[in-house]
């Protein structure tokens, strides 16, 4: 607490991708999900999910199509209301204190939406204002993010002229503004060229090193296998398996891929 960094960003020592140690029990989770349930009329989308994500952790959410991953993500980003259960981000309840919870969350949606007639820079400026950054901090942050994602040359173009990968990178920049302690990435590696994908992975590593907690929903299992501190398998709205780093390493030591594991453990669903 002697540094000027925000308290939610407890800086971690050691390797960014180090397995979750037993020290995590003493830290407060950046994201707490308790008994979460949601149904759409006859469809049970989420059925009692519990999950904690700690600072510096990268949790991969995997599961068959329709398992309830996006529904969970929508609830924790305030786009959908749960029927039961509780979600706290940085200690703030997403329903009781939505502004604080949303300020603590950077979210990159699966289906990108941008203002087509704003330039990339203007869009980031708007998001920075909404996130409560003052003008000078915002400009510095925007400049460095644009530079980091090689978007500076495109910053003055309207986003309707962006390619899918550029739009996704801009969306990631928007999520990173204000250094939120929790990042939620829904299929964020889609549509990126190898270099951009590598850049995003590098950013993920940097963010983990600064103590950001990350939830990554993805079907690209080999990436998750390498990056994640934990992989959570969801099926029919429930958490059916959790693999921590040690379990992931043990799995690859036996020559089993995450893909095989996935297929073996989700036999029932399509």
């Amino acid at each position, binding site marked *: 607490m002697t540094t000027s960094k925000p308290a939610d960003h407890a800086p971690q020592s050691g390797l960014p991708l180090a397995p979750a140690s037993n020290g995590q029990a003493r830290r407060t989770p950046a994201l707490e999900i308790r008994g979460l349930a949601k149904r759409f009329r006859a469809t049970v989308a989420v059925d009692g999910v519990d999950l904690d994500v700690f600072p510096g952790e990268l949790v991969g959410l995997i599961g068959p199509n329709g398992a309830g991953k996006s529904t969970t993500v929508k609830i924790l980003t305030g786009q959908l209301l749960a029927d039961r259960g509780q979600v706290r981000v940085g200690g703030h309840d997403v329903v009781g204190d939505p502004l604080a919870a949303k300020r603590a969350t950077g979210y990159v949606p699966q289906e990108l939406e941008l203002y087509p007639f704003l330039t990339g820079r203007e869009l980031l400026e708007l998001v920075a204002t*909404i996130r409560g950054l003052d003008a000078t901090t915002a400009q510095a942050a925007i400049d460095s993010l644009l530079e980091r994602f090689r978007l500076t040359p495109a910053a003055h173009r309207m986003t309707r002229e962006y390619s899918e990968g550029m739009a996704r990178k801009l969306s990631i920049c928007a999520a990173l503004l204000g250094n939120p302690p929790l990042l939620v990435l829904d299929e964020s590696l889609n549509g990126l060229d190898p270099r951009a994908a590598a850049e995003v992975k590098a950013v993920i590593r940097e963010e983990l090193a600064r103590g950001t907690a990350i939830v990554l929903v993805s079907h690209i299992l080999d990436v998750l296998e390498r990056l994640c501190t934990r992989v959570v398998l969801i099926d029919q709205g429930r958490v059916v398996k959790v693999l921590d780093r040690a379990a992931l390493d043990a799995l690859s030591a036996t020559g089993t891929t995450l893909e095989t594991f996935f297929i073996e453990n989700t036999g029932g669903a399509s």
Partner: protein
Amino acid sequence: MKTVPAPTPSVRRAFLRARWRMLTRRLRGPVGLVAVLLVGLAVFGLAYAGPALAAGLATEVQVRDTVFWAGTLAALVFSYTSFEVFFRAPDARLLAALPVPGAARFDDLFVRAVLLHLPLLLPAAALAWGFATSPGPHPPGAALYALLVPTIQLVFGLPVAICLHLLAGRSLLGQSNGLRKVLAGASVPDDAALLVYAPAVGLLATLVGGIFVDLFLRDALMRQKTSLLAPVLLGGLAIGVWATVQARKIAATSLHLILPRFGEVDVPPPYREDGVRKVVPGEGLGRFLPPATLPYFLRDIRQIRRRHRLDRVLVLGFFVAALKLAHGGPAPGWRVVIALTLMNGVFIVSAFRLRGELASPWLDRTLPDNRRMAALGRLAATAHHPLVALGLATLAALTTGDVGSAALVLGAGLGLTAALLVASDRLAELGRGRAGLTASLWRVAIASLCLIAGGLV
């Protein structure tokens, strides 16, 4: 935990600045030119028609009648479209996960609603201009009366409508009860019942309020009891401000809960519970089309019918109105034709929908391209309801037993409907990517022209 206080004023300013930028950029290029032309046409037409219309209104009753209809038309539009502004904003998904204070978002949408509906006062302004510039036989004070009645109606009616929408939206957060089940009937999920009625209640409130405004202003302006003027103006303003404050309070505390709930119930029940019905009304038209157009036709008509289910109700309502117009008043045939044009040109135009929310640019680019067949299918799909309306209008004219009048409705109606379909299709194609804006411009232009024509008849 470090918590930044909610920066409402700067967020509001940032929204205003961004909106202004987007609007000016949207208006660049051919769309801007068409916009200028359409607005110019509407203004010119109104400036020409205002005096012509005013010259025909000699008595106090005639003036009040015409002003009443201008105000009612505006209220009919804004009580429904203000709902769309708040609940179906195109950027709702983008902003849902960002920490936008409810009050700041309210201000943003409120400004948008006000600006969007200001053109509704143009016809009233034209009429007032007519009274002010022509020395005709109309009663004194008619100009100010024609301008003030619809203005006050907008000043209190729009905020009241918005407040009702938000109250109805907040009711989504509670449990469903018996009353709501009854209100909902078969057409909507019962948790959304109040949402369906909010626009109608808003319309009713505006019209009832309008009656009082009319009475007081008649005395104040046309019977020289000027002491009444200030209380009416202040009263209307007070109601407007009060409703705005109430609505803003609801938005500040619950907008972040209302919008996600609305997103969930905004799906009509037959499609939520028993899957999708196989056949939509109008599909039969496909039998008369070349086989190659069929896939395009079915795609478009299914999407329109499923997304815009209220169109059917509107067409039925139109039939009732056409019956009333056909039986009575001067030139019944022409009045039915104008009502039909209003219906087909303003309320059930689908050309813009197919370029906006129902468009699928990705499929268009990847599927084998058959432009002529696609255009034909689209035209047939957009033509179905307007043609039904035409049939009903003719039927309404026939019930009077006057075959000549029915033939007029059929002939003129067919020509106008075809012209509207083709013109809206061309304009929508030109404004691709800015469907919402182009549609608004089109609606304003057609509504103005109909009003002018109504005045002339």
